[in-house]
């Protein structure tokens, strides 16, 4: 039977969920909530949310009280003090922070953007076995001895045989009392996935552009994690040269070099060849840049994409962020050559408000 408090909690979660959906665009375009990300939860500030509370009727105003004081003694505010505090000059806020599981956030994102669920390409190819300790057996190694069960068996035997003394409660297990944890092996198909994020960190990519990339990749990551268990992520930054970095460096590094997008694609190709057999892995390569590529490099990029990357990828996503100088031409080069390719998704992000549409463009193919 569902208890009333559980119903209330569910109701509260529905309200929170509704509010997040309502303001999803705002949450998508503001990065502050990402900074509050825990391992599995994200703290989301929800203003003006009416949280459930008790309401008293008129009859609740009177009643009998206890404590010091005589009958008829007035109960009211005390004497005014001579404090010198000053009133604040900003409006009071009623911000409630709610912890929302990342999985639920991904679900909301999927519903709101009508994202199709991803069909992993290799689920049936790989069968993984998992051992789970679910039972108890009479034999096993000492390292798996179930102390509590063993103790109970010994106690029961001593009580039934009359050798147990309440005054001297010493329990000595014998061999027949020993119980061990036993595992059960199960087999299930496994879909392994890796996302390779690539970002242009050349001089023309400013802080605002990187922030947009950070926000967008957080949401893409959240969605992909909800679709695959234990997804791997790799990060590549590039200007004229590319190198692999960790997540922290990915979003904070800045180089002064020119833009040579092909350097990142080459490294991505090497990474896949070295670590991710394409028959077993669902591979996503997502690239963010302002598109200000050196002109003669576009052709090299297209060649690497066509011959090296696209045949091995579930999805290649390219999102072009507008820089203070406008938008580069690389997106046009890709659009003119690759827009009809099934596993290519292209989008443009003029500003933060366009993040939502960009995510939909990148993930809307359900690959």
């Amino acid at each position, binding site marked *: 039977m569902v208890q009333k408090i559980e119903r209330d909690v569910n109701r509260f979660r529905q309200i929170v969920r509704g509010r997040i959906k309502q303001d999803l665009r705002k949450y998508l375009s503001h990065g502050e909530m990402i900074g509050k990300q825990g391992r599995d939860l994200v703290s989301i500030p929800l203003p003006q949310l009416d949280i459930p509370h008790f309401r008293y009727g008129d009859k609740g105003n009177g009643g009998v009280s206890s404590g010091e004081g005589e009958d008829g003694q007035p109960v009211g505010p005390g004497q005014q003090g001579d404090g010198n505090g000053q009133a604040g000059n900003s409006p009071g806020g009623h911000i409630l922070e709610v912890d929302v599981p990342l999985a639920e956030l991904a679900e909301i994102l999927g519903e709101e953007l009508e994202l199709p669920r991803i069909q992993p390409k290799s689920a049936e190819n790989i069968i993984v076995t998992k051992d789970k300790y679910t039972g108890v057996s009479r034999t096993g190694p000492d390292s798996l001895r179930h102390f509590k069960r063993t103790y109970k068996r010994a106690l029961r035997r001593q009580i039934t045989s009359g050798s147990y003394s309440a005054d001297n409660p010493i329990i000595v297990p014998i061999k027949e009392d020993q119980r061990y944890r036993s595992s059960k092996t199960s087999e299930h198909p496994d879909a392994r996935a890796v996302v390779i994020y690539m970002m242009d960190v050349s001089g023309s990519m400013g802080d605002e552009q990187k922030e947009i990339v950070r926000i967008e990749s957080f949401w893409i990551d959240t969605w992909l994690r909800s679709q695959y268990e234990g997804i791997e992520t790799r990060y590549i930054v590039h200007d004229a040269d590319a190198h692999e970095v960790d997540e922290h460096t990915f979003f904070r590094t800045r180089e002064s070099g020119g833009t040579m997008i092909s350097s990142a694609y080459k490294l991505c190709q090497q990474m896949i060849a070295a670590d991710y057999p394409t028959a077993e892995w669902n591979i996503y390569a997502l690239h963010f840049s302002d598109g200000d590529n050196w002109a003669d490099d576009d052709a090299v990029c297209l060649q690497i994409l066509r011959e090296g990357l696209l045949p091995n990828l579930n999805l290649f996503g390219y999102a072009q962020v507008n820089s203070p*100088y406008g938008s580069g031409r690389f997106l046009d080069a890709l659009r003119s050559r690759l827009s009809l390719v099934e596993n290519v998704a292209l989008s443009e992000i003029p500003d933060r408000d366009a993040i939502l549409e960009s995510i939909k463009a990148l993930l809307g193919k359900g690959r």
Partner: protein
Amino acid sequence: MSLTETVHRLVVERTPFHDQLQPIVARDEGITLRCDLNSAESVGCTLSQIDLVDASKSSLSMDELVHWAEFICGRVTYLLEPLQLIELDGRHGIALVRSRRPQRKKDQIAYYELIADKNHHASLRRYRYDMTNRDRGSVPFPLTHEQLEVLVDDLVESAKSIHGSHA
């Protein structure tokens, strides 16, 4: 006659003219300066491009290229926006200098772009990016005659300030 004086004389000789491209080329001590003028009148002129090549030297190192680009950014402070070094391409030996704060009006962004390369070639243009059709094109930029003289002076001085290996 210095390059600045030559350029000034050539502009004055052609003034006034409107809406026609008139290239002016001046040479002195191995340095060639070319201005593509679009119009000129008594107060000033509009240029679509100004180019400088120092043929007396070649092969700047990256450090020298940076020094050159930064020298120009530090000296050329009288344009519509100050300049800053944006990118350095070591592979091609190119420094990209642009307006620090591009001018934004409605759907258009305008900024200066100066490309300096290791072969002692610097080229200054002004670009306008149109956000509606996502197109970038070069546009003429105005300078008074005095500004043009100072700009030519500064570019020539910047070229002379860097060493490079003699050709």
